[in-house]
C-alpha cells in the first residue's frame, strides 16, 4: 500500500503547476549562480594574481584586525553588519577613548606616543579634487604596528572588548574576526590548491560542494510551500472526512506523502547536477584524470536531502497543527536567520546552521577541516526530521480520531476522559 500511495502522491505532484514552477526556479537559479563558473586551470608561474584566501595564521589574523581597527578609528566610522546588513557606527567620546586604550595596549604605545602618531598622520592626510568631487589621500603610512609582546589570547580579549564597544556585527567579534585575514594566494599556494582539487576532489567533489552550497539556500525554504499546499489541499477540498475514515494507517499516509514531496524536490536537483558534473568531467579530462561520477549523488544526498527532510517535516507538522500558512511564516524567519548567520562564514562555517555554506570552488583543506562539523550538522537535521515525522504521525492519528480540534488544542473532552 505504501508504495502505491507514494507513487500516486508523486504523480499528483508531477502534474501540479507548483512542480513546474519549482523546475523553472531551480533551472534559473543554476544558470544565474553556477552557469558561468570557469573550469579550473593549473596555475602558471609569474602571474600577477592567483586569487585570495582566508589565512588561518594567528599572526596574519592579528595584523589584519589591527590594521582594520586603526583604519576605522582614524576615519571615525566602524563598519558593522548586524543581521547581515551594513551599518556604519560612530562612537561617542567615552567609547572612542576606550578604543584608544585598546589600540595603545595592542601597539605597546603610551597615550602620549599614540596621540602624537595619530595627530601626525591626520595632518598628513590631504584632499584632492577631481570632477567636482573631493577625495581623501594618505600622505604617509600610519606608523603603528602590533606589539610583539601581545599573545593571541590577549589579542582575542582586546578584540572582544572592541566588539562590545562597537556593537553587533563588527569586524572584531568572533564571527568576523578570522574572515578579516583575506590574503593573496602565492603561486605555490595556488598550485597546492589546484593539486588538491585534482587529487582529493577529482574536480567533481569541488563542483558538488559549490552546487550544494547554492541549492542548500533554495531547499531551506522551498519544501515548506509544498507541504503547506498539501495540507491546505486536504482542508480546502473538504477531503479530510473521507480520508480520515480509510483503513490506511497514519504512518503510511504521512510517510508516503512526505517521501513523495522529498522525492519530487530531490530528483530534479540530482538530474540538474548532471550539468555541473559534465563540467567537472571536462575539467578532470583536461587534467588527465577521471572525475568521481558519484560525487554529486553523495554530496547531494548527504548535504541537501537532510535539509529537504527537516524543512518538510517541520512544515508538515506545523501545517497539520494549525491548518494554515503559519509554517511558511516560521520557515521564512528560520531561513532568513540561517542565511544571515552565515554571512561572515560563507566557506565552511557549518555549525548547526540549516543552510551549510561552502561558497567556493575548491579549498579542499578548509572543507576537510570542517567536514566532521558538517556531518554532525546533517545528522542532527536528519534525526530531527525523523523525530518530527513520528510526532506528526501521532498528531495525524489524533486528528483522525477527533482528539485534536482544528486549532491544535487537545479537546477538553479528551482531557476529561484522560483524567478519568
Amino acid at each position, binding site marked *: *500500500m505504501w508504495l*502505491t*500511495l507514494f507513487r*500516486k502522491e508523486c504523480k*499528483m505532484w508531477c*502534474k501540479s503547476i507548483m512542480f513546474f514552477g519549482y523546475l523553472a526556479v531551480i533551472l534559473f537559479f543554476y544558470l544565474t549562480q553556477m552557469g558561468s563558473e570557469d573550469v579550473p586551470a593549473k596555475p602558471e608561474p609569474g602571474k600577477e594574481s592567483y586569487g585570495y584566501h582566508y589565512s588561518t595564521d594567528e599572526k596574519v589574523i592579528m595584523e589584519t584586525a589591527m590594521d582594520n581597527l586603526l583604519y576605522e578609528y582614524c576615519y571615525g566610522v566602524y563598519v558593522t553588519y548586524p543581521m547581515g546588513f551594513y551599518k556604519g557606527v560612530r562612537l561617542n567620546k567615552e567609547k572612542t577613548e576606550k578604543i584608544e586604550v585598546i589600540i595603545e595596549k595592542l601597539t605597546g604605545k603610551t597615550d602620549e606616543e599614540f596621540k602624537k602618531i595619530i595627530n601626525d598622520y591626520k595632518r598628513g592626510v590631504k584632499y584632492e579634487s577631481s570632477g567636482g568631487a573631493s577625495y581623501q589621500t594618505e600622505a604617509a603610512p600610519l606608523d603603528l604596528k602590533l606589539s610583539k609582546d601581545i599573545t593571541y589570547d590577549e589579542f582575542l580579549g582586546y578584540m572582544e572588548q572592541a566588539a562590545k564597544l562597537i556593537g553587533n556585527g563588527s569586524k572584531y567579534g568572533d564571527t568576523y574576526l578570522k574572515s578579516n585575514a583575506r590574503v593573496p594566494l602565492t603561486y605555490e599556494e595556488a598550485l597546492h590548491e589546484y593539486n588538491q582539487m585534482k587529487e582529493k576532489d577529482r574536480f567533481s567533489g569541488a563542483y558538488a560542494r559549490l552546487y550544494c552550497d547554492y541549492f542548500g539556500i533554495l531547499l531551506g525554504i522551498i519544501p515548506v510551500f509544498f507541504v503547506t499546499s498539501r495540507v491546505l*489541499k486536504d482542508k480546502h*477540498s*473538504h*477531503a479530510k*472526512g*473521507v*480520508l*480520515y*475514515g*480509510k*483503513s*490506511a*494507517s497514519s504512518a503510511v*499516509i504521512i510517510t508516503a506523502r512526505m517521501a513523495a514531496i522529498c522525492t519530487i524536490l530531490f530528483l530534479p536537483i540530482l538530474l540538474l547536477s548532471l550539468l555541473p558534473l559534465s563540467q567537472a568531467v571536462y575539467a578532470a579530462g583536461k587534467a588527465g584524470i577521471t572525475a568521481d561520477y558519484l560525487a554529486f549523488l553523495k554530496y547531494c544526498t548527504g548535504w541537501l536531502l537532510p535539509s529537504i527532510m527537516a524543512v518538510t517535516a517541520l512544515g508538515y507538522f506545523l501545517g497539520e497543527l494549525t491548518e494554515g500558512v503559519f509554517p511558511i511564516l516560521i520557515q521564512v524567519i528560520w531561513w532568513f536567520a540561517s542565511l544571515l548567520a552565515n554571512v561572515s562564514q560563507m566557506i565552511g562555517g557549518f555549525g548547526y546552521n540549516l543552510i551549510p555554506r561552502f561558497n567556493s570552488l575548491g579549498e579542499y583543506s578548509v572543507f576537510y577541516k570542517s567536514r566532521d562539523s558538517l556531518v554532525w550538522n546533517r545528522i542532527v537535521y536528519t534525526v530531527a526530521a525523523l523525530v518530527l515525522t513520528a510526532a506528526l504521525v501521532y498528531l495525524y492519528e489524533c486528528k*483522525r*480520531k*477527533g*482528539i485534536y480540534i482544528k486549532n491544535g488544542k487537545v*479537546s*477538553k*473532552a*479528551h482531557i*476529561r*476522559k484522560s483524567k478519568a
Partner: protein
Amino acid sequence: MNQEIILKNVSKYYGKKKAVDGINLTISEGMFGLLGRNGAGKTTLMKILATLHNPTEGEISVNGINIRETKKIRSMTGYLPQDFSMYGGMTAYEVMDYLGTLSGMKKEERKKRIPELLDKVNLSANHRTKVRAMSGGMRRRLGIAQAILHNPQILIVDEPTAGLDPEERVRFRNLLCEIAQDRIVLLSTHIVGDIEATCEDIAVLDNGKLLFRGTVRELIEMAEGKVYTAEISRMELEELKAKHIVTAILSKGSMAEVRFLSEEGTPFEKAVLTEPSAEDAYLYLMGREGGKAVCG
C-alpha cells in the same frame, strides 16, 4: 456472522456541551435511519461510528469488535460524510483509485471494482470528469461509490440527499436500498421522506438524546388519532398555529386547507381526523413536551 452495531450508554462531549447523551441502541442488518433536526447529534454519532471521533463515555461494538480498534473498524466500514468532496483536479476514476488504495485494496481488485461501481452509480460515462466539474448529485454518487468500494459490512451515510433535486434524491435513495442487502446501512438525515421511503428501523435523536427507537410503522402509530385536516379561513390560521402544531398548509384563495396535530380529541367541528404520515408522526414526537423518550 450476525451483523450488529451495539451502543451502550454512549456520550460525547465538546467541552461542556454534551453532543451525544447516553445513547443505548442496537442496529441490525439492513437500512437503519437516524432522524433528527439539525444539531441533534446525528453527525456526531455517525462520526463516532466511523471512528472519526472517540466517544467520551460508553462502549460500542461493531460486529463484535470494539470501536477503539480503529483499523479493523475502518476496514469494515464505508463512510460518506455530509460534505463529501475530493481534490478538484482528480477525475472520478482517480478519486476511486486513490481512496481504494487508502482502503488497502490491491491493484487488480481496484481495476475490477472501480468500473463496476462507477457503472452502478451511473458515472461510467463521467469516469474522466474532474471533481471540480461535477454537479452536487454526481459528487454524492461518487461519494457512495467510494464508500462501498472495499465492500464494507457497514455503510455510514450522513445527510446524503441534502441539496439534491427530487429526481436525483429518488435515484440516490433507491441506490442505498440496493446496497443495503447483506450489510448495515446507517442513514442519517433530517428529511423524513428519505427515511420513510427507505428504512424500516429508525431512531430519532434530539439534543443528543434518543427520543424514539422502533419501526416507521410504530412511529406513525404514535400519532394515530392526533392528526386532523380542516378547511379554515386564512384569518383563523394564526389562532390555529398558536394552539396546534400545523404540519401542512395548502392555500385556496381566502381559505386554507390545513393539516395539524391535536392531543385533545376533535378540536373544532370542521376538523376531520385523518391518517398520519411519517412526517406528522415525527413532528408530533418532536413537539411533545420535554421530548420524552419512546424507545421500542
